């Protein structure tokens, strides 16, 4: 076993994802199978290999920086337009800190 149901519950909490008990069972089975397949990578000695985080091509290091100039951006109204709950120019969320 690569992963247990308790570990799956722990990871679901990290991911802020509520899973039902049935989903936990299925998820444990699926992740176990997938992680077992991924073991294959351990066949390779990568101690001398640099990790590749991004596809790189030749350009100046600062090439993607832009001038620091003011530009129009999304209006507050547009940005809030798809929120499930908003008001007064803000997103509204449940109580975070109790008095």
């Amino acid at each position: 076993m690569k992963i247990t149901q308790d570990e799956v519950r722990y990871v679901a909490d990290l991911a802020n994802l509520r899973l039902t008990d049935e989903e936990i069972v299925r998820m444990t089975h699926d992740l176990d199978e997938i992680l077992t397949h991924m073991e294959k990578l351990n066949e390779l000695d990568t101690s001398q290999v640099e990790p590749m985080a991004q596809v790189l091509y030749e350009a100046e290091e600062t090439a993607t920086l832009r001038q620091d100039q003011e530009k129009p951006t999304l209006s507050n109204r547009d940005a809030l337009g798809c929120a499930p709950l908003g008001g007064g120019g803000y997103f509204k969320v449940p109580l975070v800190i109790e008095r």
Partner: protein
Amino acid sequence: MSIDAAGLTISAVRRGLQEKRFSACELAKEALRFAERENPKTNAYLHFCPERALEAARRVDEALARGEHPGPLGGVPVAVKDVIVARGVRNTCGSRLLANYIPPYDATAVIRLEQAGGVILGKTNCDEFAMGSSTENSAFGPVRNPAALDRVPGGSSGGSAAVVAQGTAVVSLGSDTGGSIRQPAAFCGVVGVTPTYGRVSRYGLVAFASSLDHIGPFARNVSDAAGLLKVIAGRDEMDSTSAFAPVPDYHAAMSGEVRGLKIGLPKEYYAGLASETGDQIMKAVEVLNRLGCQVVDISLPHTEYAISAYYIICTAEASSNLARYDGVRYTIRSSCSETLTDMYRSTRGEGFGAECKRRIMLGTYVLSHGYYDAYYLKAQKVRSLITRDFQQAFQQVDAIVTPVSPFPAFKLGEKLSDPLEMYLSDIYTITGDLAGIPCMSLPCGTTANGLPIGMQILTKHFDEAGMFRLAHAYEQAAG
């Protein structure tokens, strides 16, 4: 006026407008009517945007009336995958979570497409957040393959491939992270192009795995695919990962000579093929040979590690990118939202489908404390090795030719219960994404019962021109 909307190409639209056989508005209306009538057969479109389409068509007609050039896509009916946003047009990403999301801005690809005269008819169905290989993970029902309605169209851009195959759009935009353009193109029998990483701005593409995501075109022939790519390609200051490399005239490059080009066949891609797929690919290679290409055997030795590396990297990035769907900003919040944590967990638990949950979980796991080095870092190192394989191969050859998928379109439901098996079906497409090189799927015949088969062409970074030249030569020769 009679318009055969199903059979049009970009050049046929241009001719029709020039010869005044139809106006752009007439064409848009007919294309919409035809698409809305045909769509129930495949469920390829999720929604149409007739007002926007007619507005775009009107601009084309006005330009023509003024004697101006209407743009390289003037009047062409286009479909856009529902992960690429258009201001004011519902954008679901195939997810319940975004069922009512109306984006407040346009993707750069959408802006460029419309500036070139393109007429967006609607948004196409896809696997939820582009995660899947069959379009069965859409919250709004699967897409059926126009070539065989009991089979999947491939995925995740299944809708964008199907509309082009079905004739309900002339060309379309899809997105590709691990094969999501090429595999559905192969399954539906159309051309699908994944350009070099960074070639097309991703501004306005809903992020799945940012180091792998691409936007690219679908078309019924190579010329149309090249024409659409030319329009959307090039540096965009709204996407810092978009490349500065100049965009060549792909049409001019396309007609060049292919005699003497060296084509590599990587042996790792030719074991374990369904026999009809293998036969058709070898027939296509024979055509290239007759055109004067020199075919050589090569090896890409780390191919067998690609699936593992890919599914670690893409899920890690996805788990981070999908953190934003938290019940605060995007339309849906669970009714079980007593506390902030309740709101996050319930909204996400109720909103995401099974495959998204699986990938968020896998990605969170491989990034979590104690596993980062063993999985994520390891996968990034293997990604280097896979990229190096290609670099070494391209010192020997000008292009690489492989199958797109080990088998043709499978039946709806056939692989749905086994996620690992579904992942394994991406074996031939994910390597190109990991290396960030241009690659495309080109139709090369069918099975005995008429299922399309696709051939993949891969070239060096930014050598889309070479890829199109070879593809065009094959297309002309194969007829």
